[in-house]
């Protein structure tokens, strides 16, 4: 009986070892192969990502060398199409589809090795889950063998994805994670294309300082996640420099639905300015509960949520006057003229072109998430063309050298860290059912409505029309 048990156990272990072996063989990391420098007789053989992501010390400048050009360039990423960040993920995907259409149909494909190469996107729904992000990026690299990677949405998920890309030495364009910590990890291949969290909400205080020097009492309520923690660090730092007083500063855990205990304290403090650190779902909830409890302030700034058009759809006139930071808004024309003023090149669709294409494809206004993912694809195309290579190291170095303007504003990174230093975010406000850019003044599409209407007035139908 004992021998039989041992036989069974031994058999199970043997089967497991065989399965592990097969699993490793199927999903093993690619072998190191050098880039083919001689074109094959067929002209455009499919180059596998195995070749594409091989870091070769001599491949930083391969412009003059003939390269093997694939019949298409596959860009992989995940998006939170369901779960807590589904709204932002779905909006981002729409932008990616517009960018692919522009690159392939308007621009004519990536100009690589004397040919025009179309791009293709390969994406999965990461369900807003960190563990799924990790396995899906592994899959994109080892099974789907995509040429390049883009990030997913929000810092928590990007922090899970970036180490996977780094492990395989693949360029990772971070368009959706704003936490400064992403670029403080010492990653060599992570390039961030939008304004980081520490500089995201802080301009709200610049605006108030110029509008109303008497408004000094600032209250902060924020979700204790990676992104909002850094956003609030930036706000505190700017508040100190500008002479504001933080009269209230409390966090709430992820998944909170009822903010009553914090809002009662807030009602007692009576701040001039309320700044919340939220995403879409909790941003909606906290706005509604501020209204329910009648907590007024001269200005209320809500992170993330108001930049999504559904915010107004859900809240109606309660959304009037609410201020929000945004990486980009339709109507802010960072166009060729802006590039000319800066003395740098403009690349990609013009703001008007992107706007028209987006409306035609999706029948709705683009958002900052749509624009940011679209921008990441366009930047990647530019970097490939600049490097004239599919080598990951060469592309990363091309990113370091890039200083251009796209419809999304300027792109310029710190070469060492990949930290974004060129991009400029804006401040928007809901006015009469529309999002209006109110800051910085040189690109503003309207004037700020300040102080914002009270909740009582808004419930009675008052709108924030300057």
């Amino acid at each position, binding site marked *: 009986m004992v021998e039989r048990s041992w036989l069974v156990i031994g058999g199970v272990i043997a089967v497991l070892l065989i399965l592990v072996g097969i699993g490793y063989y199927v999903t093993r990391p690619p072998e190191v192969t050098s880039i083919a420098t001689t074109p094959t007789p067929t002209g455009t053989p499919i180059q596998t990502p195995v070749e594409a992501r091989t870091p070769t010390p001599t491949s930083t400048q391969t412009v003059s060398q003939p390269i093997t050009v694939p019949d298409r360039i596959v860009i992989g990423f995940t998006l939170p*199409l369901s779960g807590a960040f589904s709204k932002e993920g779905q909006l981002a995907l729409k932008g990616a589809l517009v960018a692919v259409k522009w690159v392939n149909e308007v621009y004519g494909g990536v100009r690589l090795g004397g040919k025009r190469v179309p791009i293709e996107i390969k994406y999965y729904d990461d369900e807003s889950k960190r563990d799924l992000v990790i396995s899906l990026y592994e899959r994109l690299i080892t099974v789907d063998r995509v040429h390049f990677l883009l990030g997913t949405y929000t810092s928590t998920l990007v922090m899970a994805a970036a180490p996977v890309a780094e492990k395989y030495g693949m360029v990772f364009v971070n368009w959706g994670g704003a936490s400064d910590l992403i670029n403080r990890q010492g990653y060599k291949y992570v390039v961030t294309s939008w304004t980081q969290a520490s500089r995201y909400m802080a301009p709200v205080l610049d605006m108030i300082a110029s509008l109303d020097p008497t408004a000094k009492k600032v209250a902060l309520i924020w979700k204790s996640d990676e992104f909002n923690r850094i956003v609030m660090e930036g706000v505190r730092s700017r508040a100190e420099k500008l002479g504001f007083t933080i009269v209230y500063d409390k966090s709430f855990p992820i998944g909170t639905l009822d903010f009553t205990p914090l809002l009662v304290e807030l009602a007692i403090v009576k701040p001039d300015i309320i700044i919340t650190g939220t995403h879409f779902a909790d941003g909606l909830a906290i706005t509604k509960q501020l209204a329910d409890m009648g907590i007024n302030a001269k200005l209320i700034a809500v992170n993330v949520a108001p930049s999504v058009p559904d915010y107004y759809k859900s809240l109606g006139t309660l959304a009037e006057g609410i201020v929000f930071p945004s990486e980009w808004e339709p109507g802010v024309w960072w166009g060729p003229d802006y590039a000319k003023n800066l003395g740098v090149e403009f690349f990609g669709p013009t703001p008007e072109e992107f706007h028209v294409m987006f409306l035609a494809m999706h029948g709705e206004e683009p958002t900052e998430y749509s624009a940011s993912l679209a921008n990441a694809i366009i930047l990647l195309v530019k970097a490939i063309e600049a490097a004239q290579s599919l080598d990951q190291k060469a592309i990363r170095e091309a990113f370091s050298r890039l200083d251009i303007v796209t419809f999304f504003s300027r792109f310029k990174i710190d070469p060492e860290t990949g930290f974004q230093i060129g991009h400029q975010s804006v401040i928007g406000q809901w006015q009469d059912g529309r999002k209006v850019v109110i800051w910085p003044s040189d690109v503003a599409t309207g004037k700020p409505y300040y102080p914002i209407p009270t909740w009582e007035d808004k419930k009675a139908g008052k709108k924030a029309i300057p």
Partner: protein
Amino acid sequence: MLPYYIVSGLLLGSIYGLATIGLTLIFGVLRVINVGHGAYIMIGMYVTFWLFTLYSLNPFVTLIPAFLVGLSLGMLLFYTALKRLLRAPELSTLIVTFGFGIILEESAKVLWGSDYRGFVYDLGSVYIQGIPLPLVRMWPAIIALSLVLALYFVLYRTRLGTAVRAVIQDPEGAIICGVNVEMIYLLMVALGIGLTTASGALLGIYHQQGINPYIGHLYTLRAFVIAVLGGLGSPIGAFIGGLIVGVIEQTSVPLFTLAGAPNPFGLSVFLTFMLILVILILRPQGLFGR
């Protein structure tokens, strides 16, 4: 401000209590733990949302269709799965109820998308120490309390209730006494799910924002905590447990703030679980469990 926090906690807690009664009722009668409990809360929220936004139906009236949808889902759950698994190992019913929950969530996602939805319905406020307490929070709590009292009446003052309690105590003895046990099982599953979707409708009115196919997850854990605290199988225990958790959630934040704790909101969750740990050490069957 303590009175405000306590009142607010009782209001929230009464809906938590109602949301848990369905879970504990089904466990008490069938010894089945409905792991997909939160999905039925979500369905109730969507019923209210759609009927209000599409047909401008008063959200409180939507409680009736939400309850009826729950009754139907409960019957479906019983006839398609639970009836066949009454004598099956506990793991089988766990997997089936979990699967039903996933089917409901994914169906909601396919039908209505994964967007966060919300509506605005305002009834004004009453004031406690100068701070407004919205009536859209007070009325759902009063309705939840009324439903619990009605359930108490049914369970303890009617022949049906006597039959239900007989089945809970000894199913075989109840059969000998002429009770149609299968019918009691069906009724209690339907009623349990119906009360859960009704509580979803009330939570929809209470919060009004953030309705999405996965919102039930936020309530499932709370419902299990409350059910264990009150005593699994005890509907009245579930309601009292809900009130306790509601009051702790609301009052611990200011108390921890006064104590100078760095993250008072996070600590309120810690306090809830600590309380449950202590109660379970002293009374492993929960406050009202037998």
